[in-house]
């Protein structure tokens, strides 16, 4: 991992009415690192993602990505800078096909296009096809996304994120609600993305998956940083166990992922 910092979050807060969903949070992620985020329901994990990617405006604090401040930027501008994310509740463009979904990322994600042209250039089509193949949806590019299974939708989200050629990939519960086989498949994908040099930040409830893939893990509780360290330290840290790990459920989470409050 090179020394440069990819993402720097400083004193970030996000308040809804009186409730501080994210409360004066500071952490940084180095380039090429895989950074895991854990914490009980309602710890503010997804709100943190929304603030970083411009879905919601931070109430206070700074977010610096690759050297420039993005806490006031709109989500499409942040995407153009090289940040791509997936969503906890799988989001797809239901009436578009698999290729259509990935094409949106491929065409609009890379860099800001002035006025969109009338056709898809071959380079974009190629990138979209590769991204779809990368997640194993090569044969199903014609299928309409709406009625697809949870596993396919999660892979599709990752494919359209990769198609934007991101420098930072943010995954919100990539394996939540998947069966063990599917969990391993997605972990394999994330590992491949990481090995290609992309920095990855992921939120995950499934401890086995989070610990296996993360270089460093941050545990959040009530919007604040509880602990930050290597997966091994985190699992031994008694405060984390009391507040979060509680039932050391070694079994995999099956069924849809636990939602964030």
């Amino acid at each position: 991992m090179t020394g440069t910092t990819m993402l720097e979050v400083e004193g970030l807060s996000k308040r809804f009415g009186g409730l501080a969903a994210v409360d004066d949070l500071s952490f940084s992620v180095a380039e090429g690192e895989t950074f895991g985020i854990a914490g009980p329901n309602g710890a503010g994990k997804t709100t943190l993602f929304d603030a970083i990617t411009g879905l919601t405006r931070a109430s206070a604090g700074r977010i610096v990505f690759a050297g420039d401040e993005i806490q006031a930027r709109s989500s499409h501008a942040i995407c153009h800078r090289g940040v791509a994310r997936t969503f906890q509740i799988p989001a797809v463009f239901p009436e578009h096909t698999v290729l259509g979904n990935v094409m949106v990322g491929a065409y609009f994600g890379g860099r800001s296009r002035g006025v969109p042209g009338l056709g898809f250039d071959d380079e974009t089509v190629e990138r979209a096809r590769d991204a779809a193949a990368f997640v194993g949806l090569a044969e199903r590019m014609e299928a309409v996304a709406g009625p697809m299974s949870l596993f396919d939708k999660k892979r599709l989200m990752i494919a359209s994120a990769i198609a934007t050629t991101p420098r930072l990939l943010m995954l919100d519960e990539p394996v939540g609600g998947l069966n063990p086989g599917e969990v391993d498949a997605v972990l394999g994908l994330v590992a491949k993305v990481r090995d290609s040099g992309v920095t990855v930040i992921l939120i995950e409830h499934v401890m086995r998956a989070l610990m296996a893939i993360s270089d460093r893990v941050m545990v959040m509780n009530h919007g604040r940083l509880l602990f930050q360290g290597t997966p091994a330290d985190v699992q031994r840290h008694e405060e984390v166990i009391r507040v979060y790990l509680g039932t050391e459920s070694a079994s995999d989470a099956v069924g849809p992922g636990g939602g964030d409050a």
Partner: protein
Amino acid sequence: MASVAHETRASVGRLMGWRSPNAFAVGALLIAAAALPLIWRNDYVIDVALTALIWMVLNQSWNLQLGIGGIWNFGQLAIFAIGGYVAGLVSLRWGIDPWLALVMGGSAAALVSAVIAIPVLRLRGIYASLLTFSFAEVVRLLVISDESGLTGGSFGLSGIPGLAFEGLAPDAKQRAYYWIALGLVVVTAVFIYVFIHSPLGTALKALRDSPAYAASRGVSPMKMQVITFATSAFIAGVAGAFYAQYYGTISPSVMGLGPLSLFVAMLVVGGLGTFWGPMLGTALIMVVSEALRDLEEARLIVVGLILLLTIVLAPRGLVPLLQQGWARLQQWMAEDDAPEDGPGEDVPENKPTPQQEGSR
């Protein structure tokens, strides 16, 4: 090399789920439409058909926003009328050549729509409908109460010069207008077909179904929707200008609640968000409303009831129903030919809403 490019282009279309209309049917339809004024020489029927063509252009432009873009604009009639008034005034007052007036009507409409686009596009769904609906009503009431002679008040403008076919005999002139109207419909259809399948159209549909997700993939919501708003308004403005030039008059009555119900019925019955919907819906409702011509008041009651029944029973309109029926028919035929490998095309029967309720 070219063949490869061609092959990938065709397969990209298939993979993107673009239904290329089968050329034969479209060709036949076009020839029939073009031949109509020659076969059916009754100028009343041609007049109705011509009006239907103008409404088709307007509805296609409206569907671009309402159906494909999910932009809740209920003020398109005011945009249409502005196109008509500007074209009328420009040629009446400044003697501008009617063909140029046509384009100026469209551009004026696009300009006005760009102004109201900013507040409208910032609004959440229902507020946009309220604002645009009120905009159309306010424009109508403003024109009606205008005594300054600019817009001719509730009587509107009259004596608007036509598209310079003065030399032709009346029925020849009508046929000329008819073919131009048909041309406008075809040009608009081609433009919208290309638009839907362009990156802009793809992004628009993405914004309609999952705005946050689309934005996180680099689609700028405001830019895409303003471009769509303005292009759709330009088309509606041109349609309005052509309407004014064909009839020689334009009055605020074109913007009332009655016409609005007629057009919304055409859009809903046809199928919002589909390519063929606006054209099919316009044709059907025009036939119905002409059939009821002598009933006068009852005409709008029936149209209102049709709209109510359609939106309640088949909110997605006829075109999706026909497409599913056609697909099932093909499946059924496919099963007959090759029973063992089963139907190819998977038809999405009922689309679950994308945001399934997350369970704990």
